[in-house]
């Protein structure tokens, strides 16, 4: 039997606050973090958003990060610190103790603020860390990898200086900043599949573990609000001026949100060898492409259906085994109808409790896959179902979401994250 992939740490930051405890309290109390714009510089001030309730300066004070980082990197750092602490993984926050590979990435810009490419740097990092070897004597990278998902990256900085780019504009740069600061990682990479980015980071991480490249990988995603993508979603006319109402007949779009969440993933043997506390098992995953339209989902939810089925098959579970589904459920007419069609195809008449937690956090886009994965772990650990806020009017085209429950013994949870371009992913978390 394939070795299990276990989760030994979790860190999360969202509109509900900083840290695992704040999320649990708000989810159980039914308290939404969606509110009028407070920190983002934008002309679109009449749109409700799910902002992390801290300014950049407050995030810098909380994490110890220097000034000038993209907000995506600050949110990532806050979530990573909690995840590493929970997993009892060593991290350094002293600049001078960083390993060589990343020590230079934090400051590799010239006098004009231009960054040098890091391709060669990565090769150097591997050359230096290639001390382990596999059965055939080939070198393997040692240490811990960071796999992050984002789309905004440093756009919040670039949009202020354009036509000049911020040196931290790229998705990778926004990952490298917290990676370098923490000094625990020997390699980092970034997935960018729009709103399923963080979910896909877990799949890549799982494959790094299964193939023996690493025995520990930290994966997740981070996304800050930006004027750029608030305007982008506004131009697509899919933002609701009221709090979003997923699966409701009156739903009229989504509210954007921001945040970050990371999980520490390990092979079960590595986790047990170091005596780590195991929170849950990543028992299945699926990634499929709807291959229908750049921004719209197909009527029968083909990509979503395939992704959920793959996750069940990999975990060796029948649909009846699932105790809760955390839906993508954005609140757009198209997504929720398409996802409902897919859920009905997978589960038939025996639909387990389903809810979308986006009314709590807003749609945290690239980070939603990991923030909602963290919510699933909370539900699994603490035995509750997150309620579906703002649901009043059933829509025949949609499933009827659950209104939350306490004292529920959950064994298996599905967590959906779907992105533009039909990049659909589903994760399956199980109790140990």
């Amino acid at each position, binding site marked *: 039997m394939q070795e299990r992939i276990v989760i030994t740490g979790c860190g999360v930051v969202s509109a509900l606050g900083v840290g695992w405890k704040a999320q649990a309290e708000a989810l159980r109390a039914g308290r939404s973090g969606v509110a009028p714009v407070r920190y983002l510089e934008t002309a679109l001030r009449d749109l409700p958003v799910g902002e992390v309730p801290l300014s950049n300066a407050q995030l810098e004070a909380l994490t110890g990060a220097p000034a000038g980082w993209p907000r995506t990197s600050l949110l990532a750092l806050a979530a990573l610190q909690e995840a590493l602490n929970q997993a009892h993984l060593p991290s350094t926050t002293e600049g001078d103790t960083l390993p060589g590979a990343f020590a230079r990435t934090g400051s590799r810009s010239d006098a004009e*603020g231009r*960054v*040098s490419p*890091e*391709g*060669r740097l*990565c*090769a150097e990092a*591997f*050359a230096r860390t290639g001390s382990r070897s596999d059965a055939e004597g*080939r070198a*393997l*990278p040692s240490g811990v990898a960071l796999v992050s998902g984002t*789309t905004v990256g440093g756009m919040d900085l*670039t949009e202020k200086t*354009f*036509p*000049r*780019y*911020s*040196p931290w504009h*790229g*998705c*990778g740069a926004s*990952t490298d900043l917290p990676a370098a600061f923490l000094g625990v990682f020997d*390699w*980092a*990479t*970034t*997935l*960018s*599949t*729009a709103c399923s980015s963080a979910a896909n980071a877990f*799949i*890549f991480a799982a*494959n*790094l573990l*299964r*193939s*023996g*490249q690493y025995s520990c990988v930290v994966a997740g995603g981070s996304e800050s609000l930006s*004027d*750029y993508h608030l*305007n*982008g979603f506004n*131009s*697509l006319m899919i933002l609701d001026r009221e709090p979003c109402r997923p699966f409701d007949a009156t739903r009229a779009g989504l509210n954007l949100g921001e945040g970050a969440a990371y999980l520490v993933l390990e092979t079960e043997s590595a986790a047990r060898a170091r005596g780590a506390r195991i929170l849950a098992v990543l028992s299945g995953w699926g*990634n499929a*492409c709807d*291959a*229908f339209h*750049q921004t719209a989902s197909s009527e029968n939810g*083909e*990509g979503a259906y*395939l992704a959920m089925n793959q996750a069940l098959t990999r975990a060796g579970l029948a649909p009846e085994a699932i105790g809760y589904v955390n839906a993508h459920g954005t609140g757009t007419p198209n997504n929720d109808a398409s996802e409902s069609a897919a859920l009905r195809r997978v589960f038939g008449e025996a639909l387990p409790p389903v809810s979308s937690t986006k009314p709590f956090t807003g749609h945290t886009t690239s980070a939603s896959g990991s923030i909602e994965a963290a919510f699933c772990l909370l539900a699994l650990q603490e035995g509750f179902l997150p309620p579906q806020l703002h649901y009043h009017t059933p829509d025949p085209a949609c499933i009827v979401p659950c209104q939350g429950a306490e004292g529920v013994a959950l064994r298996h949870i599905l967590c959906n994250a779907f*992105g*533009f*371009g*039909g*990049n659909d992913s589903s994760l399956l978390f199980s109790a140990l």
Partner: protein
Amino acid sequence: MRPVYIHSVVCLDQTDPSFGTLLSPMEARRMGRLLKRALWCATRALEEAACPMPDAIVTATDYGCIANSEAFLGALKAGDIPRPTHFMQSTHNTIGSLLAIRLGCHGYNATYSHRGASWRSALADAWMQIALGDVETALVGWFDEATPALQEMDPAVTDRAVAVVLSSSPEGAKGLLENPLTCERLIGEP
């Protein structure tokens, strides 16, 4: 872990090929240069490998569809109404999803964007999935476009289009793909 074989490698230099056979005039007008070059390379690579429908599509892009981002940002800065098409086609996974839509490919689809590490990551993703037996074939591409403003920030960025087809089958293979996470020089690198 199974060996992974290279079945085709197609690269474009700065000069564009003729897209006439690939795209109708209307499609060609709607699609940016980066997307056209990516589609051309991917189509050629799949043809050369005699692989009409890959099991997986994995894309690397160091910065994404930057020309569309700049058009959208420019409109925002100027106080004009920004165009939804520019936003839609500015997300990094635009390229990979376009390839999937054109091929009708419902298989695994992912995009890596981490400056110089994008290509290594995308190759590693496909290599691991084939080696582990999850998929048999993968189309892996590395696509970027340079603009003066972006080059001012990162001089290493360049117009780039590389597509390779990988497979578990040794039949007709051009070579073996080493573990991209540990090998020094990657296939398709300049």
